[in-house]
């Protein structure tokens, strides 16, 4: 089986990169959404949805990391 250390690093990369990607995307969308909300308050719902959409990226990263983690010590 693969070395546990390598698996841990792989899980780490999965979380770190996807987390960074989500954060970046949310930052862009979030600031635009706040700008739009300043113009029209009723856009809150849409702004919220658009902002949380990239959250999926890090969720996939997390799931991948979990799957890798369960392989450790196997």
């Amino acid at each position, binding site marked *: 089986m693969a070395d546990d250390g390598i698996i841990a690093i792989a899980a780490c990369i999965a979380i770190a990169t996807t987390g960074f990607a989500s954060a970046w995307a949310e930052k862009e969308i979030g600031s635009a959404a706040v700008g739009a909300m300043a113009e029209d308050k009723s856009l809150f719902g849409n702004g919220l*949805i658009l902002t949380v959409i990239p959250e999926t990226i890090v*969720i996939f990263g997390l799931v991948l990391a*979990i799957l890798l983690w369960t392989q450790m010590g196997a």
Partner: protein
Amino acid sequence: MLLPDQMSRVLIVGANSRLEGTLDLLYEDGSTHIIDFIDGEDGFRIGKPLAQAIKASERLLTLRAIAKDLRIREELLEERYPLSKLSQEIDGNAIEKLENEISDIIEHRNQSQERLSDLQLNKRELEPFTHIPLSLDMYRGYESLAVFTGTVRVDPTPSLMAKVGQAEVIMGDDGHMVAVFVARKDAEETTRVLADAGFMEIAALRGEGLPSEMMIGIDEEMAQLEEQISSAETDLVGVREKHIGFLIATDEELSNQVDRAELPLRLGSTSHAFFIDAWVPTDEVEKLAKLLEDGTESNVHLEVLEVKDRTEHDHAEDEEDSRFNEAPINLRNGRMGSLFEYLVTLISRPKYNEVDPSSIFAWTFPFFFGFMVGDIGYAIPFIVLGAVGLKKCTSNEWRTISTMLFFGGLWAFFFGTFFFAEMLGIHFISTEGHLAWNTLLGINVTHDFALFPWETYSKLGDVEILLYFTCWLGFAHLMLGLMVGFYNVKLRHGLKHAVLEKGGWMLILLGGILGVLGIAYMILIETPYFLGTWALYAGIPVLLLGMVMLMKGEGGTALMELFGMMTNVLSYTRLAAIGMSKAGMAFAFNFIAIEMIGGSGGTVNLLLGLLVFLAGHMTIWMLAIVSAGLHSARLQYVEFFGKFFKGGGLPYSPLRMIREHTEKMEA
């Protein structure tokens, strides 16, 4: 229940003399949503406002000015004002009297304020001169003398004596202010010497008398004025306390009156007759017709022009005004469903021909929230807080949050008991010697209380099972969304469209999941090999059939969204992932706290341990509101709504008198 109310378009026609009576009846009935009349339609004109409009508007203007002076904003008042008493007071010129009462006080106060700020300015100008004991008239009116007044950094006397010779220098007692008297011919030289001493000129004031004495007079007058202002403010507070109920209730009543009196501006009329074009819920039409007939002795006529159906017509063929095509949306939900309406309308109001998802939302949203929390220890405070919020809060936002906490808490309790058997991140039954309530408290809950005989799962230990399970939850939720979508499309465009579009997607979802399951069985689990093969064999043709149908229904481009469907399903794994992250944090806090409490560090460690325990769980609990709430909402809004929801409906706003601070007493 799932569709918005069916609407009928009605036309109400009568003679102008009946207009006021008709409006009263419409307000009493409270179900007509007026379609605004646009001038110049078929020779009709816009109606004229009722005669009361001017008086009511004037009074409203006065009232709002008074309210501004008294700093009254709309507040929560316990008592409602009886309408009959209110009308009597308004007609008895109560507003005008009140205006007189406070205008004197306010005028007086404003004058005092003005005088006060003048005095403050005077005082600032006079202040430097108080340091020199000279009367103000001494600074002016000389023929042969030049006078310099201002501040210096160093005493200029020695250098003046040296260069000018004859000069009278009076230094102020603060060491900066100075007054210099020299002969006019020496003025130029003096300026130079003073400049070296850092002189800044302050022009001498006009007037008479000693500045320090004048200062005392100013201070006395200012104190007096301040007292007057504060007594005026006290008077105003007194007036405010006395009349606040009346003012707020009158504002509401007059606004109602103005709305009613100006309503004819939204109607069509000729010189003798008026007509009202309006939407009325189909169920209410008969009641309204009867009301009009009885109330006007059959002199006003109501005709149903159209009962709005829910099919969608091609917009090309009828270019009619959208005012007549778009029925307003009156959501009709039960008590529980209506609590979730705000969450749905946050995105958009459903259209006339689509299912209002509030009632479905009421089940699935708290369900996911509860699954992610899944812990009795967090569930109970959620339920309590939610119940209190639902009882006390009135604003939409807070009520919605309370609703989420209450119902989400109930589900969290359910999952915490039956699925995870967990409280504050600690399981009730120990597995493989892990920390659990039974080992911690030394009791065997299973044995002693006959609790938890069922199989339970650990968020950290059974990750693979939970991931698998959440994918199936996603499948079920998306399928439900597609079914609702199927119904919507059928309603709008007929069965054939529905089968091709949404049916196609259903087959793709089913085929896809069978195929993935087949591959997973074959590669990962390997045991029931033939099951995997069969799932794969069944899945592929279903998937292909779905794709063909979709291509026929929506065109080839729709196939681009195939991967979207896959990410949709995988997106539900967040249910497990977020539960797990919370369990992980709880595990860490528990570990630290119990080490400290159980260790031999004495009382200090025990207290610190308890603190870590409390603060840690409090943090997790608060994070749970945000993360579980937001992610559950997202699954609804993005994944679920994406399968059927269009939105963009027109809100239903029937003619109604607002009665929040006033009430009609039945005689």
